[in-house]
């Protein structure tokens, strides 16, 4: 895998002294889907906007496809498509003409067939002659995606694609992203929906206070999160863990009314069945059972808290 986007020591400070990005380093591999997770104001949009050329960096370098975004901006921007967070569209344009405008603006020759194809891919074909102002919020977001794809970019940035989008449309959007990935497009999306990152990303980056705290393969992250906990509430409190249960990794609550068993879901056996049998044999009576899984959210919240 080669890096298509490479960010080195990127820093962005505003006149007021606010540092939106503090020495960010990031390598985005060609063909991957990278999800950037982070709370509001973490610097996600600033990072994306700087790569796309909307914001001028204070220091550091960014290359896209080997070209520098400052000195070879024509080469880098031709490769990039951007779907902004805000729905920014000219209200009185038709869907078709606004998408055609984007293609021309990015220097591509007029190709109406290609635009029809993009509209069809986003289920916008029947809206082609509608004015943007008449469309629903979800449809407008699709138009933004169509505009970003109009010049057939190699790298697509989606800034909060699911903000204000209903569940159905979100699923549709994920399908579109999966198809784009299959066609070789590199996709970077920012989100604060953890489930979105879990559902579609190959790698997950966590960003807070202008810094990337962690960037890791999603599968590895998930493996770390394979740990699950089973909490057993007891009818009668137990003063200690019975010797017959010493072989299990058990933790007794201070009041003795519950035991917590940690196990690995990825392992060949969870050991739950034998544990429950042994519990009964040891004379402990169960009142209730519940399981809990550490999620990306737990890791995320933990990291962000640590950072603050």
């Amino acid at each position, binding site marked *: 895998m080669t890096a298509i986007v490479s960010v080195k020591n990127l820093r962005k400070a*505003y006149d007021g002294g606010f540092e939106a990005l503090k020495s960010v380093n990031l390598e985005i591999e060609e063909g991957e889907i990278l999800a950037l997770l982070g709370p509001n104001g973490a610097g996600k949009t600033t990072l994306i906007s700087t790569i*796309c*050329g*909307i*914001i*001028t960096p204070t220091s550091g370098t960014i290359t896209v496809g080997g070209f520098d975004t400052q000195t070879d*901006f*024509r*080469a*880098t*921007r*031709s490769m*990039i498509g*951007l779907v*902004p967070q*805000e729905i*920014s*569209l*000219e*209200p*009185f344009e038709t869907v078709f*003409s606004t998408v055609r*405008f*984007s*293609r*021309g*603006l*990015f*220097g*591509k*020759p007029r190709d109406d067939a290609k635009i029809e194809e993009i509209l069809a891919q986003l289920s916008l074909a029947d809206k082609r002659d509608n004015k943007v102002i008449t469309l629903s919020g979800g449809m407008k977001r699709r138009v933004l995606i169509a*505009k970003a794809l109009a010049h057939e970019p190699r790298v697509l940035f989606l800034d909060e694609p699911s903000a204000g989008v209903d569940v159905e449309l979100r699923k549709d959007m994920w399908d579109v992203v999966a198809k784009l990935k299959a066609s070789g497009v590199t996709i970077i999306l920012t989100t604060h929906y953890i489930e979105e990152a879990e559902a579609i990303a190959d790698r997950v980056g966590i960003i807070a206070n202008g810094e990337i705290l962690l960037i890791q393969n999603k599968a590895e992250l998930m493996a770390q999160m394979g740990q699950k906990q089973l909490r057993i509430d007891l009818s009668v409190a137990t003063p200690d863990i019975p010797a017959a249960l010493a072989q299990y990794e058990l933790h007794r609550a201070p009041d003795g009314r519950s035991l917590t068993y940690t196990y690995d879901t990825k392992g060949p056996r969870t050991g739950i069945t034998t544990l429950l049998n042994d519990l009964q044999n040891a004379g402990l009576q169960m009142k209730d059972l519940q399981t809990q899984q550490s999620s990306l959210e737990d890791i995320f919240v933990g990291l962000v808290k640590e950072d603050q």
Partner: protein
Amino acid sequence: MNLNAVKTIYMHEMARFRRTIMQSLVSPVLSTSLYFVVFGAAIGSRIDQVEGVGYGAFIVPGLIMLSVMTQATTNASFGIYFPKFTGTIYELLSAPVSFLEIVAGYVGAAATKALFIGLIILLTAFFFIDIQIAHPFAMIALLVLTCISFSLLGFIIGIWAGNFEQLQLIPLLVITPLVFLGGSFYSITMLPPVWQTITLFNPVVYLISGFRWSFFGTADVSIGVSLLAIALFTALCLGFIGWIFRTGWRIRQ
């Protein structure tokens, strides 16, 4: 050079012009026709000749300039302000286009619209008044230059403006008074000497005077000075735009 982008911006702006044809074309033509009826036919018939020209004909160049300057400025300022207002400016900033190409697209379209309106007003004038053009090529050249220079000014205003009120401010408070006081409806020789001197600080005087020269061969100030004034004004606007380009003033953080 991203010529496709320049063409796309230009065509996009011209499409907006066509969509809003009533507002873009009909209203300046209508208001100028009213000027002709009121000042040319009704009042003008009671006014003597000015500099050897009938009053109705005398005001034609001034009226064309009034419309062209206002239209060039408002069209260009609106053209670049609207993407800022709707937020679609992100696309211009993330596209592989240089600032010069953006300017060429927006200013080119605004200048074309203003030129179009100027020519239509001239045609309308032929309906009301018998008029001859002494230097037709110079007339066209001066008209085109004015269209371009005021579109450049409009572009700067559009970049500067933070809301619709500011967008209207300069055309309304600066350009209209300067044009009215710049000799659109009178020769500055008709003013008392003190005011004649003060008027010479109004840059629009040189534009209108030069333009009137192309029609009638006579002018308040010499054509050479007029040309110099237009060139200076265009250079000033270009210089300012160049500065915006380098600093990203009001557009790029």
